[in-house]
């Protein structure tokens, strides 16, 4: 194998693509180097579920043949990536991060895997996740078949969940991008904690065929990468209608932020308290600086509030009902007891007892939430809040106990925006925006359905004015 320069591991998609086009190195060598690095360093962060070194080399070789024939399929051609281990990959284990499914093998690929294959991207490995994407709730970061997700910025901290492996692998330069999934915070949280750019697409924009079903009406698949620009290119490749996904919106996505409205015309809804008293003290300087950087783009910041709903209980009720149906056999067979986290086991068992009236009340309230958000987006173009109130939690911290609490009487700000955004099916872009206690913190920009180009345009402009998305963990 020819030597690959070590700076490739933190290149963006467009940088790597340019180097492949310039024939600086072969795609096969690049895929092999990334796959070896993932296999070697992935376990250091408990980020690796399954190495796919041989498959990656084969794909790289095919890409080299394409390049030789001057055939360019997409900007992702020859780019190494990883996929959360809830996406089916033909003939190889797909564990869903859980012991009862450790030997599960599908005979087909998830639609997103096929789409990336057609685009020429090279899958170098399956990436770790919280068991069953944490639907039943979980107390500790250790709730995963591969152990607790360790943060590349500080291995005594959690990488976030449930897309723990995808976020850690991108942050550590083990893959150029990764696919994660979100039902309620599973892209936003790990992207924020690991300092990578993450995109939760509009519900239905990306096919979930071949992905573990946790909650049919909430699940989304989205990219985690080095920049908003990269997220746009990946979304273009994976979005689109799919008859195999009953929730598919039947809509394509073409990455064209240049056609989005000028930033000077945009009203950004936010609550100042989210960047002050509702944020951890160590993170406030970073959040304030990020607000200033965003203002410099020309957008108008407008104080706003979320429509008043109990978002958490509504989302939890819908999730509990749908996961109970999805995992009924696991629960009734007793195999649920093989899971690691006692809270997860109990949550799944209890969910079987959820009354139908509660589920129906929750999905009727969800209709009202969607209507209220439609109205809100006539007043502001996007919503802005911290990705999380502070940096990654310590590994030993109980996740089902209240962490940071603002002073009593603090206004709610946009509290519940993760649950609200997921209930309304809204897209969100996570942008690294600084360090707190030497750990990354991030912004989230949330838009109306199918406004990904608007979010990506804001993200691209923010990332031309800041370099937080380019920062690397100290040991890397």
């Amino acid at each position, binding site marked *: 194998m020819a030597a690959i320069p070590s700076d490739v591991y933190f290149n963006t998609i467009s940088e790597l693509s340019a180097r492949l086009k310039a024939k600086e190195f072969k795609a096969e060598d690049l895929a092999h180097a990334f796959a070896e690095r993932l296999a070697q360093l992935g376990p250091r962060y408990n980020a690796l579920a399954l190495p796919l070194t041989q498959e990656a080399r084969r794909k790289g070789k095919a890409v080299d043949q394409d390049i030789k024939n001057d055939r360019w399929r997409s900007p992702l051609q020859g780019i190494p990536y990883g996929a959360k281990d809830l996406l089916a990959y033909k003939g190889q284990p797909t564990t869903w991060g859980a012991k009862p499914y450790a030997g599960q093998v599908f005979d087909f690929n998830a639609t997103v895997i096929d789409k990336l294959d057609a685009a020429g991207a090279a899958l170098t490995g399956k990436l770790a996740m919280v068991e069953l994407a944490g639907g039943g709730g979980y107390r500790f970061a250790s709730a995963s078949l591969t152990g607790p997700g360790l943060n590349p910025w500080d291995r005594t901290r959690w990488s976030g969940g449930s897309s723990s492996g995808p976020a850690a692998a991108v942050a550590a330069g083990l893959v150029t991008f990764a696919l994660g999934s979100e039902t309620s915070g599973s892209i936003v949280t790990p992207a924020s904690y690991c300092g990578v750019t993450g995109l939760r697409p509009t519900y239905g924009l990306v096919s979930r065929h071949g992905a573990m079903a946790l909650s049919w009406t909430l699940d989304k698949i989205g990219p985690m990468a080095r920049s908003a620009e990269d997220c746009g290119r990946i979304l273009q490749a994976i979005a689109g209608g799919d008859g195999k996904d009953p929730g598919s919106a039947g809509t394509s996505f073409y990455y064209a932020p240049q056609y989005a409205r000028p930033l000077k015309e945009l009203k950004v809804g936010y609550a100042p308290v989210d960047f002050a008293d509702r944020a951890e003290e160590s993170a406030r300087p970073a959040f304030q600086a990020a607000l200033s950087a965003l203002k410099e783009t020309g957008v108008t910041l407008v104080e706003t509030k979320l429509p008043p*709903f109990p978002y958490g209980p509504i989302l939890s009720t819908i999730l509990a009902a749908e996961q109970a149906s999805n995992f009924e056999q696991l629960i009734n067979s007793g195999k649920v*007891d093989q899971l690691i986290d*006692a809270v997860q086991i109990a*949550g799944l068992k209890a969910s079987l007892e959820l*009354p139908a009236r509660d589920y129906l009340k929750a999905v*009727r*309230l969800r209709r009202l939430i969607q209507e209220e958000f439609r109205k809100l987006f006539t007043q502001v173009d996007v919503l802005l809040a911290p990705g999380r109130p502070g940096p990654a939690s310590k590994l030993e911290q109980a996740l089902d106990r209240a962490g940071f609490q603002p002073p009593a009487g603090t206004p709610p700000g946009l509290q519940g925006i993760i649950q609200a955004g997921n209930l309304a099916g809204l897209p969100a872009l996570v942008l690294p925006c600084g360090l707190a206690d030497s750990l990354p913190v991030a912004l989230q920009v949330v838009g109306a359905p199918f406004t990904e180009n608007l979010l990506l345009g804001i993200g691209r402009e923010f990332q031309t004015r800041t370099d937080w998305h380019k920062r690397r963990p100290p040991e890397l």
Partner: protein
Amino acid sequence: MKLTRRQLAAAISGAAIAQAQTPQPSAAPPDELEAARGRLKANSDLLAQQDVPAATEPAFRFQA
């Protein structure tokens, strides 16, 4: 089947090692299950306080 004492000791120690190597299921203790039920009940009580107009249909889609 007769076993010598040595064979019996080997069989027992092998079984013990196999048992030690098998991760024991971490079944949720009863109080965790009660706590989970309590969370669902608390959610249910909160939902019950929410008024929903009679004409509001559930937000899920069915295509015939």
